[in-house]
């Protein structure tokens, strides 16, 4: 039961993290290069454009969901399991989701990078 709850909450956490990263990435591409926009129209305009973007709001909601899933996971398992498992699964999930939903060209170079970082994070935090 403990294992089931731990891994279900890690799965929910990874789902929300990947969803959050993907929609926030899409939102910021729609907002446009923040540096340029800031120089051109000021900080207030950047903030207004971000808050007015539906994807940005969905991203924040997803991140909040992820935060609570993490708190739940932490109440069932040690941080030394939850943190590395969630971080490395999120890395791999993001690579797959970015390719499918953001149409990023995840070439061999980026797959290798995602796999190396995911393995590295699991080792370093474990």
């Amino acid at each position, binding site marked *: 039961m403990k294992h089931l709850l731990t891994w279900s909450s890690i799965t929910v956490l990874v789902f929300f993290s990947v969803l959050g990263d993907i929609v926030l990435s899409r939102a910021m591409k729609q907002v446009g290069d*923040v540096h340029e926009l800031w120089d051109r129209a000021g900080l207030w305009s950047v903030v207004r454009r971000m808050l007015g973007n539906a994807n940005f709001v969905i991203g924040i909601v997803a991140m909040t969901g992820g935060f609570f899933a993490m708190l739940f996971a932490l109440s069932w398992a040690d941080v030394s399991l939850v943190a590395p498992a969630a971080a490395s699964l999120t890395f791999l999930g993001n690579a797959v989701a970015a390719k499918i939903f953001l149409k990023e060209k995840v070439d061999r*170079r980026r797959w290798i990078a995602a796999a190396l970082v995911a393995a590295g994070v699991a080792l*370093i935090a474990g």
Partner: protein
Amino acid sequence: MTLRKYLVLAGVAVFGAVGDSMLAHGMKQVGRISIHHLQDVVLAVLNPWVAGGILLLLAFFGAYMSALSWADLTYVLPATSMGYVVLALMARFVLNEHISQMRWTGIILISAGVGFVAGGPLVTTHSHDKPEEFEELEPEEEPEEVGAGEVKR
């Protein structure tokens, strides 16, 4: 790739890693929060480590959003994972903690991953979201920009 962009990526890595560990350190001082006293979680903000951690995580979020506005997600994430390495090196050389062989292996793997992605392009998506959305948003923004332009006049 400008110096400003390198600084933003470094900011994502450092603010995130240091913010997280300040938060963790602060929460250890605060102690466990009982389910019957959930309001204590708000008081935790009064701990200077927690407060500092939150400020750094806000800075992290700003830098992260900025990076995502000009680079792919699959570029930003590996590139900023250097933060984990910075944390481990800080633990070793500032706090004089022992770093196991497994963690050194992790550091090497992450650094190799960063090297792989850093040599590639920042953005690989072309004109998918941008142009349409820009055209939709631009007219709305124009009056605002005239207002902002007053300073220049």
